[in-house]
């Protein structure tokens, strides 16, 4: 078997692990956004009938995980490992969701980059023969994130135009060694980039350099030209971070066609009717946009190869109160239409 490591920080998956099934579950506000029809379950109640935001978040994840397993035609016992995480302290939402699944579990934290971090690790496990089926998941809830990182949800504070709106939702992808879904061909694990930004209401600006760093590393390690992809998307840079990233791309002379570069944080909500300031954020943002919207476009044959770069701000409520800057990270995963399965047919 050839070495999986390519270049400094990338993996090339020779055996091309397959995304056998995905599931996305979102809250009512996300359902009203432009991608509403791409999600599998849209809840009418953001509490999901539970008595706390945290329990609701956990329920979202559990529901997405169960649905992904069911869609892959598997039983819980068939899934070898679950890799996932969320934004809450000690990633309780994920751990509590997996409690009822009784699947051997690896909890990961990469803030909003968790979606691609878990998918990359799942692909790695399957590619190396460490597992046949791995479930990767990420979730976030607007209110539980507000409660932990900012103010009580009903508190009347005026948010600046750089602020972002955490997505209520959960996305899960079942990675299998063979099957008919899209394949994962490569991943690039990011390093931490800290440009000294301290404002937790301006995460896009904090995260943009990390996204561009991982992007650069991906193309360098793989010797690939950005043209290889039909679409490059970042996780949740939103308006401010996206425009900075575009600037950095041009400044570093990366040959990326900016028409083929987008951001999940810009796609999630309708800026005219929904009050989300700069755009969307949260673990669920890149998870549900990728698993729900982008893979649907891939199934329909519109997209053949995509690169998803999920971005994460690795701060805590304590760290910014103590005046620390925000360390950021980004992980990239390359997803391609399955040539053998006649995708898009």
């Amino acid at each position, binding site marked *: 078997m050839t070495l999986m490591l390519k270049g400094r920080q990338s993996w090339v998956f020779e055996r091309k692990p397959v995304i056998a099934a995905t599931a996305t579950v979102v809250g009512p506000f996300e359902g009203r956004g432009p991608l509403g029809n791409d999600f599998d379950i849209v809840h009418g109640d953001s509490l999901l009938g539970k008595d706390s935001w945290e329990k609701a978040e956990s329920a979202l994840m559990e529901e997405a995980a169960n649905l992904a397993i069911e869609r892959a035609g598997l039983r819980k016992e068939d899934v070898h490992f679950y890799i996932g995480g969320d934004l809450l302290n000690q990633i309780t939402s994920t751990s509590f969701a997996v409690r009822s699944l009784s699947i051997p579990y690896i909890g990961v934290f990469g803030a909003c980059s968790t979606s691609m971090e878990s998918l990359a690790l799942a692909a790695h496990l399957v590619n190396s023969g460490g597992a046949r089926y791995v479930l990767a998941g990420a979730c976030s809830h607007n209110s539980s994130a507000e409660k932990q990182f900012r*103010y009580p*949800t009903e508190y009347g504070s005026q948010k600046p135009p750089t602020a972002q709106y955490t997505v209520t939702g959960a996305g899960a992808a079942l990675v299998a060694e063979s099957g008919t879904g899209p394949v994962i061909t490569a991943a690039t694990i990011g390093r931490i980039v*800290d440009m000294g930004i301290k404002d937790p209401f301006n995460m896009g600006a904090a995260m943009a350099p990390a996204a561009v760093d991982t992007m650069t590393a991906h193309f360098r390690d793989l010797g690939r030209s950005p043209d290889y992809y039909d679409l490059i998307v970042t996780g949740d840079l939103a308006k401010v971070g996206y425009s900075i990233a575009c600037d950095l791309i041009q400044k570093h002379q990366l040959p990326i066609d900016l028409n083929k570069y987008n951001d999940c944080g810009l796609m999630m909500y309708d800026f005219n009717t929904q009050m989300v300031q700069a755009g969307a954020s949260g673990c669920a943002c890149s998870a549900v946009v990728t698993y729900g919207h982008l893979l649907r476009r891939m199934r329909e044959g519109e997209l053949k190869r995509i690169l998803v770069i999920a971005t994460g701000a690795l701060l805590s409520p304590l760290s910014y109160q103590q005046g620390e800057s925000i360390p950021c990270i980004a992980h990239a995963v390359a997803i391609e239409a399955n040539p053998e399965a006649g995708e898009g047919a």
Partner: protein
Amino acid sequence: MASKTMQKLTPVQREYQKLAQMHEPPRPVLRNCIRAFFAGGAICVLGQAIQQLMIQFGGFDKRSAGDPTVAILILISVVLTSMGVYDKFAQWAGAGSAVPVTGFANSMASSAIEHRSEGLVLGTGANMFKLAGPVIVFGTVAAFFIALIRLILKGG
């Protein structure tokens, strides 16, 4: 950004922050001020109307009418907070809804509701003053020093 914090940054970080600032949409300060003026003013007019009603029909005099007026404003704010309306109004009104007594009531009610899931004592009780607490602490400290200045200047 303060020059002191800028000095601690590396040249690359400094250069990036300049670039980032160019992309940052500015806070609409003038618009926020105008909205705050009208929203805050409207709340005060409402308070004045309630006070007037208390004097006319409630049997209060000008001095004592303040107490039921504040209580009613607090009640309105708490009801709007519980209904999930006050925070949306506040995104529009800014300081206009934060500064009057209704903003103070909102900060306490929202904290109380938010932390109810952690129980009555450690949740609601312990967190109710999470946002209002600093106002009370620094309000008291400021009052002490103002009183001290008055004492020194006017002598009791």
